[in-house]
């Protein structure tokens, strides 16, 4: 193992901002800040409560813009996808299906669920983390070797 590009301070500050966002949404709206759940309710709405979801997602994008307007480093426009279009399509489909079937993603299960000490979220987080570790191992060290 070789440790690369480790940025603990911005990672921790960014994480704390995410935690603040989740706490704020819970305090004000009584909702869990799970991105796949919030977005899923826009993509195929259940009943009525769509507008706040749209504003939350617009906020996600606005947050990215604010970062760029503040001129913080590193510059986001330098970021590049790590795989080709075909893999992006497969990955996007799997993330959409998986988070919907598994009722949550890195935020809903990983941050909010663990903070609420939900056993379901603990199992879900260990499952998708494990699955992602195995996937990267296969792609980088077995197939790509």
């Amino acid at each position, binding site marked *: *193992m*070789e440790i*690369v*590009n*480790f940025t603990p301070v911005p990672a*921790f*500050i960014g*994480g*704390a901002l995410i*935690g603040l966002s*989740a*706490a*704020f*949404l*819970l305090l*004000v*709206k*009584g*909702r*869990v800040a799970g*991105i*796949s759940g919030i977005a*899923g309710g826009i993509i*195929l709405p259940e009943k009525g409560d769509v507008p*706040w979801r749209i*504003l939350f997602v617009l*906020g*996600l*994008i*606005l*947050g*990215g*813009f604010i*970062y*760029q307007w503040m001129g913080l480093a*590193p510059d*986001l*426009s330098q970021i590049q*996808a*790590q795989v080709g279009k075909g893999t*992006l*399509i*497969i990955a996007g489909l*799997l*993330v*959409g*299906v*998986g*988070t919907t079937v598994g009722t949550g*993603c890195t935020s809903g299960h*990983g*941050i909010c669920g663990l903070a*609420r000490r939900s056993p*379901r979220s603990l199992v*879900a987080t260990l*499952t998708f983390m494990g*699955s992602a*570790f195995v996937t*990267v191992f296969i792609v*980088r060290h077995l197939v790509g070797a």
Partner: protein
Amino acid sequence: MLPLIAALVAGTLFGLGLAVAQMVDPAKVINFLDLFGTWDPSLAFVMGGGLLVNAIATPIIMRRKTPLLAEFFRTPTKHQVDKRLIVGGVIFGVGWGLAGYCPGPMLTSLSFANSDILTIVAAYVVGTLIARIALRAWERDRLSRAQRA
């Protein structure tokens, strides 16, 4: 109006946090997942920061009877682990590991969208739509069978 502004503020904080933490860079995410190669532990610190704030704030907030601008708390109430949770987690993990994008960073990346980001977001929307339609049909089917029985 106020609840909508609150949702916008919450989303903005979340997106800013993802950008500051550089989680919008799939290279950092994939390197976190590459334990046996070029490992970047940053993502663990993002989750740690988020968890720390949330683990302190959540119990304090949940002592209230109601949220500030809504009638009641809508936190998940289910406790049992089921097959669906595991199957979904495995599928999500494969997709996350393949491209390094989970839903939050994907959507925040629309602030500097290029054709790659639009591609994965479109695929994510289609995947979510298919799964939600399938789950809805499956749920209806289960209910009607339960009624007949």
